[in-house]
C-alpha cells in the first residue's frame, strides 16, 4: 500500500505541472486586455501600454509564467490587479465559503442519492423505482440556476421564510440560525445534480449486484437480508465512492451559476468576478487551486478505493 501511495503521488507531479501550464496559458487565449480589471473603458491605448510595462505584462508570456510559477511554489499567487489584495487571502475566504456550501450540498446530495439509489435498486421495476428514476432524470436535466431562481421565488419572495442571497451578515461563518438560513436554498440547489447522479449510480450498482450469482448463493446459504445488504454495500462502495469523489470535486469547485444566483461569496462567485474583470492573477490562482484540489481529491478517492478493494491496486 505504501509503495502504491508513493507511485500515485509521483504521478500527481506531472499532472500538477500540466495544470499550471494550462491555467496560465488559458487566460491569455481569452479575449480582452489583462488591464481591463483596473482601467476604465475610456482609457487610451497609450495609457494601457504604459501600465502594462509597470505591471510587467509587457514581458514574454514564458517569462511571465516562470516568474509566476516560481512564486506559486512558495505559496505566493500574486496580487489581484483589481483589488490589490493578495490572491491567497481572496481565495482563502472564498474557498472556505464554498467548502461550507459543498459540505451541506454533499450531505444532502449523497444521503438522498444513496437512499434513493438503494431503494430503487432493491425495488427494481416497481413504481417506486420508476419514481426515483424519474426524479434522478429530472435532477440531472434541470438547469440548477433555474431551480435556484424558482426556490428563491417560492421561499424568499412568496413565503419570505428564507433569505434570497448572501452568506449571512458578512464576515466569517458562524454556526448560528441566521447563517444556516442563508445556506439552505443554495445547498439544495447545488445538491440536485449530485443527488441525481449518485442515485443513478447506486441504483445501477445495487440492481447489478443483486442479480449476481454470489448473492443467490449467499441467500441459499441462509444469510439474513441485512447480511446480504452488507455484501451489496461492500461491492457497491468503490464505484459509488469514485462517483461521489468526482461530485465532491465539482461541489468544491463551486458552481459559478449557483453562487452568482445567490450572491454566495465562494470560489465560483470569485471566478465569475475574476473572469468578467479579466483579473489575471486572481483567475490563474483560483483555477490553479481548484484544479490542484481536484487532483488531490482524485488521489484520495483512489487511495480509499484501493483500501476498500485491493484488486484495484493490483490492476
Amino acid at each position, binding site marked *: 500500500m505504501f509503495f502504491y501511495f508513493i507511485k500515485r503521488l509521483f504521478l500527481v507531479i506531472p499532472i500538477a505541472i500540466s495544470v499550471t501550464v494550462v491555467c496560465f496559458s488559458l487566460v491569455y487565449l*481569452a*479575449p*480582452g*486586455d489583462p*488591464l*481591463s*480589471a*483596473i*482601467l*476604465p*473603458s*475610456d*482609457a*487610451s*491605448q*497609450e*495609457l*494601457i*501600454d504604459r*501600465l502594462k510595462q*509597470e*505591471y510587467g505584462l509587457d514581458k514574454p508570456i514564458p517569462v511571465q509564467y516562470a516568474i509566476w510559477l516560481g512564486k506559486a511554489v512558495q505559496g505566493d499567487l500574486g*496580487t489581484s*490587479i*483589481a*483589488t*490589490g*489584495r493578495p490572491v491567497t487571502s*481572496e481565495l482563502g*475566504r*472564498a474557498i472556505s465559503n464554498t467548502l461550507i456550501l459543498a459540505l451541506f450540498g454533499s450531505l444532502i446530495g449523497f444521503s438522498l442519492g444513496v437512499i434513493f439509489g438503494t431503494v430503487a435498486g432493491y425495488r427494481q421495476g416497481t413504481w417506486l423505482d420508476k419514481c426515483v428514476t424519474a426524479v434522478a432524470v429530472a435532477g440531472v436535466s434541470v438547469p440548477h440556476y433555474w431551480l435556484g*431562481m424558482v426556490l*428563491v*421565488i417560492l421561499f*424568499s*419572495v412568496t413565503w*419570505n421564510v428564507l*433569505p*434570497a*442571497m*448572501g*452568506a449571512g451578515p*458578512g*464576515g466569517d461563518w458562524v454556526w448560528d440560525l441566521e447563517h444556516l438560513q442563508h445556506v439552505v436554498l443554495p445547498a439544495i440547489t447545488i445538491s440536485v445534480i449530485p443527488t441525481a447522479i449518485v442515485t443513478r449510480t447506486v441504483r445501477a450498482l445495487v440492481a447489478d449486484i443483486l442479480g449476481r450469482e454470489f448473492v443467490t448463493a449467499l441467500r441459499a446459504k441462509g444469510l439474513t437480508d441485512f447480511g446480504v445488504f452488507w455484501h451489496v454495500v461492500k461491492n457497491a462502495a468503490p464505484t459509488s465512492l469514485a462517483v461521489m469523489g468526482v461530485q465532491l470535486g465539482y461541489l468544491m469547485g463551486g458552481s459559478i451559476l449557483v453562487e*452568482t*444566483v*445567490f*450572491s454566495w*461569496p465562494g470560489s465560483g*462567485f*470569485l471566478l*465569475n*468576478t475574476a473572469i*468578467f*474583470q*479579466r483579473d489575471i492573477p486572481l483567475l490563474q490562482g483560483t483555477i490553479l487551486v481548484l484544479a490542484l484540489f481536484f487532483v488531490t481529491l482524485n488521489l484520495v478517492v483512489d487511495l480509499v478505493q484501493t483500501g476498500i478493494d485491493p484488486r484495484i491496486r493490483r490492476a
Partner: protein
Amino acid sequence: MKQSNWVQRTGLALLCMALSLPLAVNAQTTLRIGMTAADIPATTSQPDSGFEGNRFTGLTLFDALTMWDLSSAEKASTIIPGLAESWVVDAKDKTKWVFKLRKGVKFHDGSDFNADAVIFNFEKVLAKDKPHYDARLVAQTLPRMPTLKGASKIDDYTVSIETSEPDAFLPINLSNLFMASPTAWAKTKSWTEFAKAPVGSGPWKFVRLVPRERLELEKNAAYWNKARVPKTDRLTLLPMPEANTRVAALLSGQVDWIEAPPADAIPQLRTKGFQITNNPYPHTWPWQLNVLPGSPLADKRVRQALQLAVDRDGLRRVLGFNAIPAKGVVFEGHPWFGQPKLNVKYDKAAAQKLLAEAGYGPGKPLKIKVQISASGSGQMQPIAMNEYIQQQLKEVGVDVEFDVIVWETLFNNWRLGAKDPAARGAHAINVSFAWQDPFFGFARFYDSRMVAPRSVNWGWVQNPELDKLVANARGSFDAKARDAAIAKLHERVVDESYFLFWVHDTGPRAMSPKVKGFVQAKNWFQDFSTISMQ
C-alpha cells in the same frame, strides 16, 4: 375603581414608553442597496467599476475639489465648489489654475484638509518618484483628466494646478480626483492597507468591508456641508451582479433599493408597491461610424439618411420604455444641446431621398457591417436593439451585417480604431458611452488628434472645423461661454452625424416604499445624503 383603572393604565403606558425610549433613541436607520457590481468598488480613494464605483465608494467616502450639483431631478447637473471654494485660470498662461481651498474641513480621522493634502493626492497619480504613487490609482484617474500635469502649494489653502495645454474642462474633470487623508495613508504606506479602512472627508464614514459581500458606512455627522449630512444612520452596499437576484432580494426585504432592475420585472415591482425611479442621464447608446476614405459612410448624406431611417420609439419598446430617443450626444434641454440644423427623428421618405442622392436605391442597396457585442457593461440589450435597427434600415434599402464579438474584444477594437485589422472592415461600432464631461462626450471622438491609439476617435473623424470647435470649447474658461462653445460643437456633431444616436439610458432604480427623499439627478452620480427611511 374607575379612577384606579385609569391610573393603572396610564402608569402601564408610561412604563412601556419609558422602556421603549432607549430603543427608540438607539433605533438606527439603514439604507441597504443592491449594486450591479460583482465586488465592492475599490476603496483606495480612486474607485474602479467605472462611474458605478465613483457613485458608491467615491462620492460617499471622499470629496473632490469640485463636485456635481445633484440636488435637482429636472435641471442638468452642473459643477459646483467642493473642497475648493473657488478657482480661476491664469489670465496670461491658461495652463495654470489657482484653486482656493475650503477651510475648516477635516478628514474622518480628524486630520486637517489643506494644500498639503491636495498635493499628496495629485502626487498619488502623477509623481512616479513618490512612495504614494500607485499605478492602479493612475489607471482609475488619468483617463478622466488627460491634460493634468501637476500641482504645487501656494499657501496652506491655495494650490496651483497645471495642465499640459489650455483646458477649460479641468474643473469638471477634477470631480473624479478624490481626496484621501495623507495621515491615514502614512500609517501603513500602502494603498492596499488604506483600502481596508479608507479615510476621506465625505458625508459617509467607513465602518466595515467584507470583500465581495458588503461595505458598511455610517453617517458623518460632522460633514462640512450641513445640508448634505446624511439623514440615514447607515448605508450598506451589497454586490449583486445577477439582475434577478437583486429583484428577489428587494421583494424579500433583504435590501431597500436595487440598481438597474430588469425591464420585465418593473411592472411586478410597481404592482407590489415598490417605487421605480428613472431619469435620463449622460449615457448614450450609438453607432460610431467609420468615415475613412472608401467607407460609404464617409458621405454625409448617407450618414444623415441612416440617422433618419429608424423609429426610436420602437427601441424604447424593446427596452420596456427605460430609455428616451436620442437626438444627439446630449438630450434636448441640456445646455450643450444647441440648435442643430438636422432634426434627428424618424423620416423614412427623407432617408430614402438622401440615399437616392448618394446613389443608393433598390438596384444598388447600401451594405454595411457593424461590430457589436452580445452583452457588456452599459450596452443595454445590444442584440435585440441592433436587430430592431437592422430591420428598420432594411426598409430603406440598407443591408446591415453584424460582426458579433465578445464585449472585451469589442472594447479593445474600439481603442484600436477602424483602420486596424481588428475592425475587419466594419463600417460602424456599437459601444455605449458616458458624456458626463466634455472630454468624454466630444473631444475624444471628434478631435483629429484623438484617433487611435491615442483615444477613441475610432472612425477617424478628421474635420478641421470640429478641431477648431473642440479647441474653442477647451479654451472657453467662463462656464457659460464654455457651455455655449460646447453647444456650437454639438450642433455640428449632430449635423455631420459621425455617430448615429439611438437612445439615452434612463437608469431605472427600484426601491422600497420606506425610502423617502431620493432625488434622481440627471447624472451618473446620486446623492444618498437626502434619503431617509420611514
